[in-house]
């Protein structure tokens, strides 16, 4: 039922503007795959190419092994959920859901039955005869999902469908979407600029910038082992230090910065390229005495108690601001503003990363 998708050297130009630049990715049948990136990075263009509203300038898109060139959206085994959902306001809910069956010539009784089954699946049992305007944001969301599922697509494409919802509902719908995906086994391709969404829901995430796919990996690797500076800073927070590499060996290197020389992991393929040092705020410790290595004396300049963590801003002697996030386990001591401490970070968990892969052109 569900199908895999291959993108092979896919390029999409709009006039002189290269929206998608040589993207290669192989999405497995039944996978929940997210394209994550800032607005304008080309992720929506990829989605529109898969659904058939845009044709790639170069390259091949295969769905279930079949080349999709020249196939219109109404001929592809995909169903797209639009950012604004695009429900039909003049039809009652059940006609919305069964529209795909209606155009396939299914009779009215079967359509009605199928619509009610799908409404039960998305947990919205009594809505069949309501109009779209009578539903709340989250309910409309479910109707859109049901409408897309009605045509039994091999691939579901979702274009930031949660962005219009409030935080609580968004978190609820995340779990819901994930559950529906597991239940139906359909391949989901999800577009988002929200890193939390992408990490929490996906089997794999593809991070995009400037039309290029920067990294494809499971959420843990995206966060823990970003391949470049763009991925590291788009997914999560960082202290970023500039400097120069000295004596690299065995995947580790010394890195000379204006606030001292530190040891950190040097990722594969970063050899020779200009790199920066990326340190996650939650990997930093603050202590009275300096650590063995990678320690720098700081003065605490600002403390914000956030509840589950404590955000600390600290200044080094030359005025560089560093950020630490201390987990609040219930007994954590909140450092006083103005106190002089040592900031230490683990060499294994700090990375020397090159900048993003290639710009547009």
């Amino acid at each position, binding site marked *: 039922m569900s199908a895999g998708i291959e993108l092979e050297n896919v390029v999409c130009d709009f006039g002189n503007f290269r929206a998608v630049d040589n993207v290669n990715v192989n999405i497995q049948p039944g996978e929940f795959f997210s394209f994550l990136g800032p607005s304008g990075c080309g992720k929506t263009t990829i989605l529109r190419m898969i*659904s*058939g*509203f845009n044709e790639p300038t170069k390259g091949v898109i295969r769905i279930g092994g079949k080349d999709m060139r020249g196939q*219109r*959206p*109404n001929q592809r085994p*995909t*169903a*797209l959920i*639009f*950012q*604004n959902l*695009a*429900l*039909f306001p*003049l*039809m009652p809910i059940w006609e919305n859901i069964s*529209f*795909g069956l*209606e*155009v*396939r010539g299914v009779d009215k009784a079967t359509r009605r039955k199928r619509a009610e089954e799908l409404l039960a699946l998305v947990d919205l049992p009594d809505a069949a005869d309501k109009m779209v305007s009578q539903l709340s944001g989250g309910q409309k969301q479910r109707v859109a999902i049901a*409408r*897309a599922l*009605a*045509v039994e697509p091999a691939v579901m494409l979702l274009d930031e469908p949660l962005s219009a919802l409030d935080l609580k509902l968004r978190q609820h719908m995340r779990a819901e979407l994930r559950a529906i995906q597991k239940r139906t086994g359909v391949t989901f391709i999800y577009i988002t600029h929200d890193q939390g969404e992408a990490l929490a829901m996906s089997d794999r995430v593809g991070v995009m910038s400037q039309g290029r796919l920067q990294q494809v990996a499971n959420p843990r690797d995206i966060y823990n082992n970003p391949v470049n500076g763009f991925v590291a800073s788009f997914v999560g927070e960082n202290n970023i230090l500039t400097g120069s590499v000295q004596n690299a060996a065995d995947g580790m290197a010394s890195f000379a910065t204006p606030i001292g020389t530190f040891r950190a992991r040097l990722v594969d393929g970063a050899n020779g390229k200009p790199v920066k040092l990326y340190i996650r705020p939650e990997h930093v410790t603050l202590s009275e005495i300096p650590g063995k290595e990678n320690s720098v004396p700081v003065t605490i300049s600002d403390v914000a108690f956030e509840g589950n963590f404590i955000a600390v801003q600290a200044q080094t002697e030359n005025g560089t601001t560093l950020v630490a996030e201390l987990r609040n386990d219930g007994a954590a001591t909140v450092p006083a503003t103005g106190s002089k401490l040592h900031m230490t970070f683990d060499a294994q968990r700090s990375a020397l990363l090159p900048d993003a892969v290639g710009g547009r052109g």
Partner: protein
Amino acid sequence: MQELLRRYGVGLTAAFIGLTAFWLLILVILPNVTLFESSFRPYLPVVDVGGPLDTYSLNNYMKVFGVPVDVSVLWMTFQVPVHIKIFFGTIYYSTLVTVITFLLAYPLAYYLAKVVSPKSLPTLFLLLFVPLWVSEILRSFAWFIILAFKGPLNALLLNIGLIDAPVRWISGYNSVIVGLVYTYVLFMVFPLYNAIQSLDTNQIEAAEDLGAPWWRIHQRVILPHAKPGIASGSVMVFMLCAGSLLVPTLLGSTSAQWFTQTIQQWMLEALDWNTGAAYAFMLLILCTVFVSVVMRIFRVKLSDIAK
């Protein structure tokens, strides 16, 4: 009112209200009331006006039932009063023109609203407007020349071999239909354009993504959304056609009479303003009734049209 006073003071507020009242009362209501009143009075020599003969009656309205002529519909032949025949002809051909303008305007409006790139839109609108820079009389007269028996249209068709002998285009209501469609098609294009343009393009794409062929998308998504635009365009075109005098006068053949021409004959040729007024009110009221009935059939509300 309070708000207006506070904002503009007594002088300006009085001027606003005075001008609006003048326009509404003196220029709109008063002439209509005068005409309405005179439509019930007989046409009398001046000396008898206001005398004992000057009484209210429905005689002027009853004149439409005079002078029967033969009318054939399919295989049946009826005796119908000539003015009633003209009236129904006017309604029938106005409806026909409305349908033709819709069939022409809908693809054009869709093309302008959803297909054409926004860059070339102003140029296309300009091209649509250019004919409006020429007066209606000249445009109708241009069609009179084009459609003439020895005119350019017949010459062209003869030259490319589409017809063997020249066609008499100006016969029956043909040329009136052509002229009315040409004159009023833009009144259909713009409401339709506005209606289609306000449709979220994602809905068209969603329908296509769900597997709908193009005609289904029009039938189920675009046409229902455009219904208020279709209604207001149709009402406008129909009313303008039924009330048009110029086009039928210039382009009508000897056998094509328009009801407005009958009114004009009462008013200007018979100099019987009273009967003319009665006929004018009949046209107004019956057209309004006809439009309301059609709107009821297509389930369009007045508030939809006002949008």
